[in-house]
């Protein structure tokens, strides 16, 4: 079998979103500032994939719950089928719920191991649950789970506006290293303890086992995310100065983490025929043209598609299908 060079020039979004030859699934991350139409494009892509026979999941990590709004249906924390789209399931990752479930599981475990919780420990659990970064950690934990799911051909991740996305992705690197340290120290402690006493209490091994299990999960997530055959990133922006600069900056950061950004969707582009209607629209269109040229230059090598500004906000499956026609 010939080796397909990964750097080969991609011509369309179809190549990016569908599974790479030889691979069973594909993970597609959509990123972008709030309000540029990221969720819209993610949903449109997911619907396109489903309509073309791929079993697809769209997972939203956006705390603003914009996915439910754009799909016009409830999206819960278990994948449920999207009405009107046969092959598509949607799921909303709810970090608060995950945190509550985790807290309860831990309280139960402590009770079963030691009895009623000791003072100080209960407060610690509550304090940890509201410390900064815990929501992002819980979200990340959940999407590691989805990354390893085998039952979908394509998973589209609608990530939260740029800041959160980057934090989530860089977490895997930092945490991986930290877990390594914990494992080293734990092993050393067990080694020393073995020299002193003949019998190691079983509970000690539980922690090491848990640490190594967590380490493996992070490594799997990292290897999936940085493998361009399995994962890609698509940026959504509008042809205006600030969103473009942010997208540039964010792209660099993401690529530095080893994840490939292969696509750019320029949303809310004024159609040329609008220019003839009013001087105002002509002027805006010209401004957009300048930005579009800049985008073509700055993001050359990536697949760039344009999506027009529609007559109203994109809402509902049929409008999303219209959008997907411009994307694919």
């Amino acid at each position, binding site marked *: 079998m010939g080796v397909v060079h990964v750097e080969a020039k991609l011509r369309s979004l179809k190549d990016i979103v569908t599974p790479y030859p030889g691979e069973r699934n594909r993970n597609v991350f959509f990123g972008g500032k709030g309000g540029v139409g990221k969720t819209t494009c993610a949903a449109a892509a997911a619907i396109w994939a489903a309509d073309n026979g791929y079993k697809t999941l769209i997972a939203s990590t956006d705390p603003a719950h914009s996915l439910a709004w754009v799909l016009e249906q409830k999206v819960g924390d278990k994948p449920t089928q999207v009405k009107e789209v046969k092959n598509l399931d949607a799921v909303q990752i709810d970090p608060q719920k995950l945190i509550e479930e985790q807290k309860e599981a831990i309280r139960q475990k402590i009770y079963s191991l030691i009895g009623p919780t000791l*003072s100080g420990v209960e407060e610690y659990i509550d304090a940890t649950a509201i410390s900064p970064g815990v929501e992002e950690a819980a979200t990340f934990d959940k999407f590691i789970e989805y990354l390893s799911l085998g039952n979908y051909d394509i998973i589209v991740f609608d990530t939260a506006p740029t800041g959160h996305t980057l934090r989530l992705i860089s977490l895997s690197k930092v945490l991986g290293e930290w877990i390594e340290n914990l494992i080293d*120290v734990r092993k050393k402690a067990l080694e020393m*303890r073995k020299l002193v006493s003949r019998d190691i209490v079983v509970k000690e091994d539980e922690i090491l086992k848990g640490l190594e299990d967590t380490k493996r999960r992070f490594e799997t997530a990292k290897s999936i995310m940085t493998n361009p055959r399995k994962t890609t990133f698509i940026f959504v922006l509008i042809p205006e100065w600030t969103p473009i600069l942010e997208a540039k900056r964010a792209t660099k950061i993401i690529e530095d983490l080893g994840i490939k950004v292969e696509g750019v969707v320029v949303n809310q582009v004024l159609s040329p025929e609008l220019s003839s209607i009013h001087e105002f629209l002509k002027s805006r269109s010209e401004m957009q043209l300048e930005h579009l040229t800049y985008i073509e230059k700055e993001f050359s090598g990536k697949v760039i598609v344009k999506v027009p500004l529609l007559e109203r906000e994109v809402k509902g499956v049929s409008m999303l299908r219209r959008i997907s026609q411009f994307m694919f």
Partner: protein
Amino acid sequence: MKFSKFKEACKNWFTAVSEVFQGAIGEERFREHAQREAVKFEDLFLLLCFGDIIGLPTPSPYFTLKFLPYVAHELPDFIKRHKFYDTGEMLALWESFM
């Protein structure tokens, strides 16, 4: 001949006995050392993993919360020992891992 062999035997016996004594005392010292090291590393682990309970920040408490049940009974003592009395050595070790 017989005497030199006897001397040899005595020497060997003497060495053997002194080794036994050395071993006994040495072993005790070694055990004490290993015990201290074990406690040090166990404490270090708690500092790295649950240090935020005494104010030392950890990168992400969410992922290690699940280990809490296994060490929960050690925590009240741990807090007492480290909350105000941390030696430079422990903090330096902790820092080197952070």
